[in-house]
């Protein structure tokens, strides 16, 4: 394309964006002659250039718009219709410009319609004045648009073109911004990038020189080198700055958008912008532009109420959208807030259920904030009607995804009736990031700190120890099993893996895992350089960088590591794993299972969350007593149980065992080997009659026995239970266990039984009600909350209504316990709430409830 034309297009597009913003300002403040002057000049320039470049269509259009604006300058009242017409004209000019950019020539077409309207409006004022272009200094407008009398004094000195109106002292300060823009030049981005590279090289050379001088104590170079050093640092900072742009550049279009929206929606909306001069890297700026626009549209469309609604709610009739930006650490914080109605939690809830995102039962355990966050889910929209503003296919999920892509976050706060606020936190620049320089197998690598949560020192002597589940190393960190992956292993660096090292706890999306490295050297601000095309296929790296000492090192990509880690990475969520309640194949229905072999070649599995520890015990420490195997473990005698008689204890070496703990007591299950940890939906396909085996499930392609730990607990603790039962249990009380998941029924029933109760297990609330009506009296009801058809809340309420069971304590079982669920549970008569995996807590709750009953009786 012709350079001149290219230049014209770039410049004009920028000017038009400014005209957009200025016009909106002008409409609100029609007396500001300064703004009008700016607009007039911009349009005039476009017209002039078009004529020069031979673009007659654009020229005619710009001319017509200019004429109308000339009228404003002469004092014609500024009406909303007139501004709209000019805005439409500007849109048309933009369309033509786009076409020119593609075709390199003006597209065919006729703008007669617009020109006619513009001319009509120009002439409507009546008095047609000549010499419009000669009027350079804008006459002040009448204080009210209705009083349209043009001030004569100004028209008297109209002959000389005075050029830019900064000649007038009154206008000087207002005009400062304009002057700044005329002092700036356009620089190719490549030039800037090249400059950046050169400066990096300068920094490296300086570092080398400093190193040399350090070795020669009394060098003459010392002082000048110090100067060079400072200048270099300044230069580096300066060059970095050239890449920074004020965020206001991304906001320029917003006033126009909000104005158009107000008109379209019939709402009164004001856009307040603060911190527009907050700077960030141009690359990041480009990426936040669209998400920001979307959020502002959303506020206008969904957030702000109509004037009538607002008055009814006792608010001012004009709604406000506040856009602000500021720096915080290495981040920029952008807040988009409205003072509208806030998110409609009930509607989001209903919509999410309707769209099948979550079941009604799952909803119960969600807090209000969690429900609000559902709007970020893909495909979610609460707008009951698709307006032209929202519902354009760009959803909030895209906003979040875009932000996360650049290492940012979006947070949402909403208060019913008083507004919604989105807080966006993004790194200032993508080119320079803070990174952890780590060492593995004698080589250095950088890990971006954005995804690093914490550093844990792991060693045999320290607080944290790397445990090994067969091939998978794990770290127990604050009661969570963190899957680990060694950097040596991912990168195939070889060498012996050592268990003494550092664990870089990393988060990618909602996966948390640890990267094991040999050492952590320091943190450094690194300049990310793109990877060579010959290396780009290596997923473990996201780029390269040059360290201060001049060496090139690879930047580890946490996303790539997460992929390498694969399914094991989800182990971290084992503690949050939900039961298999058939609510669709979402991740939360996954269960972590520990697969092992014992007795036979057929793999066996237990719920990982039931296992407290994996140990290898020296065979020599295993003692026999009273026909039972025991081992001294943590100052206690721990019984060792075998799954069946085929399982033999090893004669020498280390015996692997799974440790299960309950009430401070532990039992060890003897196994031959630990095979794997898998994360999958648990479907017990065939149930088993064999004691100790719940059934069979297909895990990783092979039929696996699911072991019933509940079967083994009483074997280990029989004496203990008997002793306790004698004291507390005059007679066996009946517990009604209600859970739609067979797995949990089968897991919990033996457990409750083991604690000395009779258990009646049923699969639904309906069956439970049938059981209390027809069966023998029940002392305690333990019910799952999330069940199809009739949930735990409904069951509790129904039991309240039956005289026979009105006083029976009901204990709720839930995968997730929120304060709201507990409160709601109390209202309908729940006596206690226990997390599904908290076996100790469940037994304690049953004891407590039956104890209360006992005393009362």
């Amino acid at each position, binding site marked *: 394309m012709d350079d001149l034309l290219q230049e014209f297009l770039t410049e004009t597009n920028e000017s038009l964006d400014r005209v957009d913003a200025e016009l909106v300002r002008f409409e609100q403040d029609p007396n500001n002659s300064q703004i009008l002057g700016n607009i007039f000049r911009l349009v005039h320039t476009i017209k002039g250039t078009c004529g020069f470049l031979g673009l007659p269509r654009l020229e005619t259009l710009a001319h017509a718009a200019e004429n109308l604006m000339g009228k404003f300058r002469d004092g014609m009242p500024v009406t909303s219709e007139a501004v709209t017409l000019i805005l439409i004209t500007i849109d048309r000019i933009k369309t033509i410009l786009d076409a020119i950019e593609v075709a390199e020539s003006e597209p065919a077409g006729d703008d007669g319609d617009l020109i006619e309207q513009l001319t009509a409006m120009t002439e409507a004022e009546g008095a047609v004045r000549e010499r419009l272009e000669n009027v350079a200094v804008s006459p002040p407008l009448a204080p009210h648009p209705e009083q349209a009398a043009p001030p004569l004094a100004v028209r008297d000195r109209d002959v000389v073109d005075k050029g830019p109106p900064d000649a007038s002292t009154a206008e000087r300060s207002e005009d400062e911004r304009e002057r700044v823009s005329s002092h700036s030049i356009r620089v190719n981005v490549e030039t800037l990038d090249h400059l950046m590279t050169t400066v990096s090289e300068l920094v490296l050379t300086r570092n080398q020189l400093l190193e040399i001088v350090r070795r020669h104590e009394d060098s003459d170079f010392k002082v000048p080198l110090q100067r060079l050093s400072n200048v270099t640092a300044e230069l580096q900072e300066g060059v970095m700055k050239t890449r920074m742009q004020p965020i206001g550049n991304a906001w320029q279009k917003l006033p126009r958008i909000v104005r158009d929206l107000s008109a379209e929606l019939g709402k009164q909306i004001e856009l307040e912008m603060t911190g527009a001069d907050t700077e960030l890297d141009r690359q990041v700026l480009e990426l936040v532009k669209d998400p920001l626009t979307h959020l502002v549209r959303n506020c206008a469309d969904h957030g702000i109420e109509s004037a009538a609604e607002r008055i009814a709610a006792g608010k001012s009739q004009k709604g406000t959208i506040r856009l602000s930006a500021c720096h915080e650490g290495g981040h920029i914080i952008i807040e988009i807030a409205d003072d509208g109605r806030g998110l409609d939690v009930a509607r989001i809830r209903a919509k999410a259920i309707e769209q099948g995102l979550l079941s009604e039962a799952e909803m119960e355990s969600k807090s209000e904030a969690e429900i609000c966050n559902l709007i970020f889910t893909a495909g979610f929209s609460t707008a009951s009607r698709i307006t032209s503003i929202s519902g354009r296919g760009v959803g909030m999920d895209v906003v979040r995804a875009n932000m996360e892509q650049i290492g940012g976050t979006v947070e949402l706060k909403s208060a019913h009736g008083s507004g919604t606020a989105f807080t966006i936190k993004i790194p200032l620049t993508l080119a320079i990031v803070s990174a952890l320089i780590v060492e593995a197998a004698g080589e250095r690598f950088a890990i971006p700190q954005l995804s690093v949560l914490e550093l844990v020192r792991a060693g045999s002597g320290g607080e944290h120890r790397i445990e090994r589940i067969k091939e998978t190393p794990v770290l127990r960190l604050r009661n969570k099993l963190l899957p680990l992956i060694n950097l040596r292993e991912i*990168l*195939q*660096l070889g060498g012996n893996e050592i268990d003494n090292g550092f664990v870089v706890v990393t988060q990618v999306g909602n996966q948390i895992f640890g990267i094991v490295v040999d050492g952590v050297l320091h943190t450094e601000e690194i300049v990310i*350089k793109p990877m*060579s095309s010959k290396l780009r296929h290596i997923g473990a790296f996201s780029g390269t960088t*040059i360290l201060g000492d001049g060496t090139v090192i690879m930047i580890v990509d946490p996303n790539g590591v997460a992929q390498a880690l694969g399914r094991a990475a989800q182990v971290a969520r084992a503690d949050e794993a939900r039961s298999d309640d058939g609510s669709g194949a979402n991740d939360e229905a996954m269960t972590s299972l520990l697969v092992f072999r014992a007795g036979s070649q057929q793999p066996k599995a237990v719920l990982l969350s039931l296992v407290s520890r994996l140990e290898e015990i020296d065979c020599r420490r295993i003692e026999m007593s009273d026909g039972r195997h025991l081992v001294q473990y943590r100052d206690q005698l721990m019984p060792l149980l075998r799954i069946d008689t085929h399982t033999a204890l090893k004669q020498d070496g280390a015996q692997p065992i799974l440790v299960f703990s309950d009430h401070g007591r532990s039992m060890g299950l003897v196994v031959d080997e630990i095979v794997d940890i898998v994360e999958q939906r648990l479907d017990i396909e065939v149930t088993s009659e064999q004691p100790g085996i719940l059934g069979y499930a297909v895990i990783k392609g092979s039929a696996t026995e699911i072991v019933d730990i509940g079967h083994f607990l009483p074997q280990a603790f029989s004496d203990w239970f008997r002793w306790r039962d004698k004291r507390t249990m005059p007679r066996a009380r009946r517990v009604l266990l209600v859970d739609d998941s067979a797995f949990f029924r089968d897991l919990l029933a033996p457990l409750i039984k083991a604690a000395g109760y009779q258990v009646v297990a049923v699969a639904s609330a309906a069956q439970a009600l049938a059981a209390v009506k027809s069966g023998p009296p029940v002392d305690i009801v333990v019910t799952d909350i999330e069940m199809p058809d009739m949930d735990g809340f409904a069951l509790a309420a129904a039991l309240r209504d039956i005289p026979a069971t009105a006083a029976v304590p009901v204990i709720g079982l839930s995968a997730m316990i929120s304060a709201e669920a507990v409160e709601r549970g109390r209202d309908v008569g729940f006596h206690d709430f226990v997390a599904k995996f908290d076996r100790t807590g469940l037994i304690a709750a049953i004891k407590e409830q039956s104890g209360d009953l006992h005393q009362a009786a």
Partner: protein
Amino acid sequence: MTMQSETDFTEFVTFTIAGQIFGLPIGRVQDVFKPMRMTRVPLAGADIAGVLNLRGRIVTAIDMRNRLDAKKREVGEPSMAIGIENKGESFGLMVDGVGEVLKLADTEREPNPVNLDRKLAALSAGVYRLEGQLLVVLDIDRVLDLRGEAVAA
């Protein structure tokens, strides 16, 4: 006007890899440097010797011995690098030594002899018969068309 005077000449930077002389048109060569502080790139193909910093640019070094299936370089064996630019990226061809610049007539360039080593032929853009030696003109595009790239991707 004779045929001779019409002939165009090309200047070649010559270098040796495992005893064989190669040449690259001088226009394709950015610089010749001694590779220092090379960083190995884990998981990269064997053709990638590593990455290094050359005056602020990151250069991807290609192990030409490996590329030609020649014997691996011994530790401490001297090496040089031929710096080239390709599609905006910098590469360094790791060679054993750099020789003189030769000005050779285009007409003297011959197609690959049929008995040329298959590996050499794959990267050759023709040969020159020098005194008692064969100079292979490297086809840089083919050198940079790494097999590992497609395999590992």
